């Protein structure tokens, strides 16, 4: 089936099988920042924004996304870089496998919540698992990023 997606503002038409998930479609289209960590929609590594909302791409059927706006981390490069700067200062990046999806979730949170508290941040990001960092440094970095007016 032909599906028309809008990925990072660019229209992309693609022929997909009925049962294909967005994660696979995006990787076929070379949006390789979108990665797989599980098979049960439970790790958050594959998160993209669908019309601005963080959603696990591994559980979305591509055929149902005709004309929808999909954002991958490539689409928010500036913000991701800014967040990365704060991660760098806190030593909050380790393997990095969870990072692009987290950048997208943080970006969506920034738009949605005004001055979130640490508890709100934890709750918003709870679906983004990370096995490396122990989370605390990430949270400090995210708080700094949210305060960063540059």
């Amino acid at each position, binding site marked *: 089936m032909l599906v028309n997606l809008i990925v990072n503002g660019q229209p992309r038409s693609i022929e997909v099988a009925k049962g294909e998930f967005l994660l696979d479609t995006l*990787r076929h289209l070379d949006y*390789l920042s979108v990665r797989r960590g599980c*098979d049960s929609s*439970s790790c958050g590594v594959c998160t993209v924004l669908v019309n601005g909302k963080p959603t696990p791409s591994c559980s979305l059927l591509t055929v149902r996304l005709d004309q929808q706006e999909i954002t*991958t981390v490539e689409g928010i490069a500036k913000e991701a870089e800014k967040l990365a700067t704060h991660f760098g200062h806190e030593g909050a990046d*380790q393997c990095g496998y969870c990072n692009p999806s987290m950048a997208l979730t943080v970006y969506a949170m920034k738009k949605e919540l005004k001055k979130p508290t640490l508890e709100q941040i934890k709750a918003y990001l709870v679906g983004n698992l990370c096995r490396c960092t*122990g989370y605390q440094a990430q949270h400090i970095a995210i708080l700094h990023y949210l305060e960063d007016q540059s």
Partner: protein
Amino acid sequence: MKVVNQLTPSIDGKGLMMGRHGYTDDFADKNALIIKVMRSPHPYARIVSIDDAEAKKLPGVELILSYKDFERRPFTRAGQGYPEPSPHDKFVFDEYVRYIGDEVLCVAAVDEATANKALKYIKVEYEILTPILDFETAKQHSVIIHPEPEIHEMFPIGFKPLENVAASYHMHIGDVEKSISDSEVVIKESFYTQAQAHSMMEPHTVNSRFDYQNRLVLYSSTQTPFHVRRIISQALQFPLSRIRVIKPRVGGGFGGKQAIHGEIICSAVSIRTGKAAKLTYTRKEVYESSYTRHPMRLDITLAAMKDGTLKAIDCYVLSDTGAYGEHALTVFMVAGSKVLPLYNKVDSVRFYGDVVYTNHTPAGAFRGYGAIQGNYALESAVDILCQKLGMDPILFRQKNMIKEGETSPIFSIMGEGTEGTAMNMDTCKLDYCVKRGMELIHWNQKYPRTQTKKDIVEGLGMAIAMQGSGIPYIDMGAATIKLNDDGFYNLLVGATEIGQGSDTILAQIAAEALMTSVDKVIVYSSDSDLTPFDVGAYASSTTFVSGNAVLKAAETMKHQLIIESAKALGSEFKDIEFDGEIFNDSKHQKQISLKDLSNRLYYNHDQKQLMVTESYVGHKSPPPFMAGFADVSVDLLTGEVKVNHYVSVVDCGVTINPKLAQGQVEGAIIQGMGMTLYEDVIYTKTGKLITNDFMSYRIPTRMEIPSMTTEFAESYEESGPFGAKSVGEIGIDTPPAAISNAIYNACGVRITSLPITPEKILKGLKKLKEHSI
């Protein structure tokens, strides 16, 4: 120091956050054959027949491989140096399957759907055999898990397959029985630890193809690219010189990627078809069919005098290696060798036991590597002893623990598979770590417990720990530094970045020695064709072993640079001063910049490439030490435990990168906390692992983490690069005992098996109540 021990953001964090390509699957060929593995539904069975006729007819099915397609040649997937201290007890595929999830055969097809469909079309008939699912009954069981005659040990490791023993060991110092009977207070306890799963976010992933020189090229998410190359060659009898293993960015390892996973099968498919292939584990396969931590039973006896002098430690360990013996002996050894020296003043020690085969998912390397199991048992037992002595557990530790300048006979007796290496503790700031930790956790105010609400009690607990820094005389790392025109460097290392930050800290070490900045040192790591050898990322070796190699290489490069600058200036070597940018002969008022020198070397005069390689192998393994303190709340109604605060004070020598070192400690603390409280491993009665995804196997999320305070003791290890020891594993060791001691101090319940679930606590509370009536 300008670069080392300074705030330095990781060199790759930005690119990775921005989604740049880098992980194994990002390099898979677009048209790679997809490999799917059929896995055993039985814990123990013999394959009677395989009918793949229907599957072969499916359009798009390229190849089906089973045991019939391979010569029987045993090897080990352990991913260790050669000869390995693990038994060679595995075949690419075998007629026998030994756990639910074991490899039966594989299909390579044009796409995933076809491969999966083919698996459904293949009929395998099994003769079902009786499995061994309880490791405490495995030894000398009537069922033999590895009866095959070809398997063998590479050197004596106590391998007795006909008794289901993969490895065994016994050592003693002094007369333990006598010390115990001469002592005034004796305690005895058994502890159980579970088969924790690494749960790294990137599943095991590999892809392969033949390049235009007709060589086999693999990208693999591995911790040991050089060992992978060697083992593929051994197992498939394919020339080592025709294999290139590239380790790209790795999405977490924690020991789980030390061993071989799909690399051999993937290579076999490419070799037989000449085509590109890829194999990515599903999350279920990661849990069921890779490796776990070795579950153990540890029986500990401690004997002391009433004044709190520890006299004897007796420790029997039974370890479950599952269906195959990867890391069987060495993990077992570390449960003693990196735990027992903590109390080095005892009269006698005994450490012995067996590592047995069962029909469970095999166990392998996992951060902590035996030390976490041993630490949980010993550091819990110490608190139990203190309770009986009526002594403050901190005073007891201060009296008995190892101190700077001291040694322990254990170091020379217990190595990893062979004898160990004697060494003195040139740096050991445990004393400081304990004192500082007490302040940070408010020990004197809060120990042992405070009642915060009617049904909530808070308790404090602590534990001390040590690890190592590589395996002396075995682990080797090498580094090459190349000077480029314009005066910047390439640093080529075999050392394996797996997310722990090694590329960054090795660049820092080179930059510091060459007096330049990190952006002038371009790192490329772990490519078997291009980088020098390194054993890989394990045994907490990278900072110490590979770091020393980098430091040596940088110093040699500096020396060469000065020689060349002297030539260029017509000066004498001894008159040159180099500050990283300018070579200055102040005596004769001549100078040249590094940039001009490099350009001169490559374009104008005395043309030559400056490139140096140095290697390092440790002659000792200076242990990092730490004290861990937990502040927990126990809900007396629900049995639920919350860790409120965790304090770590660590002596890892000088931290090359303080923030990344902190990240290593805190990430490990949370993994250790996961093992202590949440990460339950459940097998059904028929041997099926049912905790096989992120929902049933609960790793800590953001919601459960305590606030963490992490500090480093001031410490300078002479033998380490710029004073550094290792820091990758030490953080994981203390949470089980510290949290468990805190729970005891809070509510009086002592849990001796991990994980500590609310059910176990409620049961304990109920028992306490019954006793007090």
